[in-house]
């Protein structure tokens, strides 16, 4: 990574209920493109994201564009230009689609970018008055990603955006993230290595609450031994099928 990182995480530690979940995570998010955060289940990926955002008590250092953010309340940090699509999508089920999007509006120079959101997800316009709780998983993910695109954010954090989605919807989500990443850097937590291969230039791998590896995504995924050692998967049947899922439709 040559240009200075947009987000620099150093020695991030998270203690929940007297138990250390993160022991010291280091992470650099590139100033453009997609940086993937990888790791086996329970490695601490989601906790890292929540720690970066201050949604869990944390210690260490999190620099956004060179400014320290540990100590800032979540809402202040987010207003500095972060769009967050959480693992469970964070949809307000009893609110309509339009209300879910309206909540994410922040005062900015250009106003909310509904044009872009509706262009990428025309369905959200058609379903504006539908309760978000009655949407399919894919449609809910559209709302979650749509909220991150509404404001002129400096960074988008998407936590497993393709989890549990049908293959066709995975392709759609990947295409949207690809387009979003042309304008805004994305930190992507992802288990689907085909998605990572398609989108990410850089990656960090967590293991047991620590950073086990940082580097170029292609180099890691091209090294079968390192992939198996760090992520516990090779290019076995599951990965191959996921490859087909994304690449056949693209």
């Amino acid at each position: 990574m040559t240009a200075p990182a947009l987000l620099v995480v150093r020695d991030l530690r998270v203690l929940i209920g007297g138990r250390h979940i993160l022991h010291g995570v280091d992470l650099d998010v590139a100033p453009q493109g997609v940086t993937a955060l990888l790791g086996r289940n329970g490695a601490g990926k989601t906790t890292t994201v929540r720690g970066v955002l201050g949604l869990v008590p944390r210690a260490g250092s999190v620099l956004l564009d060179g400014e320290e953010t540990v100590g800032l309340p979540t809402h202040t940090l987010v207003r500095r230009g972060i769009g967050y699509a959480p693992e469970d999508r964070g949809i307000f089920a009893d609110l309509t689609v339009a209300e879910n999007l309206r909540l994410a509006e922040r005062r900015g120079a250009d106003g909310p970018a509904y044009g872009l959101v509706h262009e990428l997800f025309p369905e959200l316009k058609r379903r504006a008055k539908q309760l978000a709780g009655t949407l399919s998983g894919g449609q809910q993910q559209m709302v979650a990603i749509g909220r991150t695109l509404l404001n002129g954010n400096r960074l988008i954090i998407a936590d497993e955006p393709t989890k549990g989605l049908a293959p066709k919807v995975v392709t759609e989500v990947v295409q949207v993230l690809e387009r979003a990443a042309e304008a805004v850097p994305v930190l992507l937590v992802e288990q689907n290595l085909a998605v990572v291969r398609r989108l990410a230039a850089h990656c960090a791998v967590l293991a047991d609450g620590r950073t086990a590896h940082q580097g170029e995504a292609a180099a890691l995924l091209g090294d079968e031994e390192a992939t198996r050692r760090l992520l516990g998967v090779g290019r076995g049947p599951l990965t191959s099928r996921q490859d087909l899922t994304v690449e056949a439709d693209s």
Partner: protein
Amino acid sequence: MSTLVLLTMTGLGLGALYFLIASGLSLIFGLMDVLNFAHGALLSIGAYGTWWAASGNLPGAGPGGWGFALAVLFGTAVGTLAAVVLELVVVRPLYTRPREQVLATVGVGLAVPALLSGVWGSDARTFPGPEALSGTFGLLGADVPVNRLVLIAAAVVVLVALRLFLGRTRHGLVVRAGVEDRAMVTALGIDVRTAFTLVFAIGGCAAALGGALGGLYFGSVDPRQGTSLLIFAFVVVVTGGMGSVTGAAVAAVVIGLVQQFANYYTAAGLGDLAVVVLLAALLLVRPRGLTGRLA
């Protein structure tokens, strides 16, 4: 027939009073997970503020006409202010310690009545009110006290205002979203603490208005009034579904009517028991209350 009408109107008046306390209590719990045991104290502050002002202590206020309206406004404003102070000074510093938070509100709920007793004595004080509101009006052959109608009208206005606030304003949207997932609201860049203070202010305002108009209903104010009404307000909140304003309205009407009818047709005091039995029966059938959702 006239007995039925009178019991119904009295039950509805009592239900209206319960709603004025329970609506705020329900919103506060729904949004913040705070069981506000000091909510009855806010009602008492509203009642004493109105009584104090209507007794000639506030220039322009008095027991009749616009003077009484000003007294009610004053009592309600004092209750609202007290609620804001309660949130900022007592509740806010304890957000990460829910157990201490509950204990602190219990403490305020005990301290306020003690303070009111210390200043104005523990005996009930006659509540001054305009003549027009202390009379009766004829309805289907029954002479119904006007104050029942005043309470019902106030509760309807508060219900409509709350629904408009929740449904049509950005702050209302934040409150509804916060009831579902508070952390996600902050993750969208919204300072949810503003909404906390706001719901405390709204809840305090409604409860204090209930105290001001409850003085008309009971004809007197006493330091323990708020605490004893709070118990039934909690029953209303649980019955209606935590966080649901409309649920609280429906539950308040049902509980007010059941209590009145049971007290009249069985034995005095059995109405209170009937309400608790009703709550237990409902929770067996619908553990999340009548609605289990907001607005």
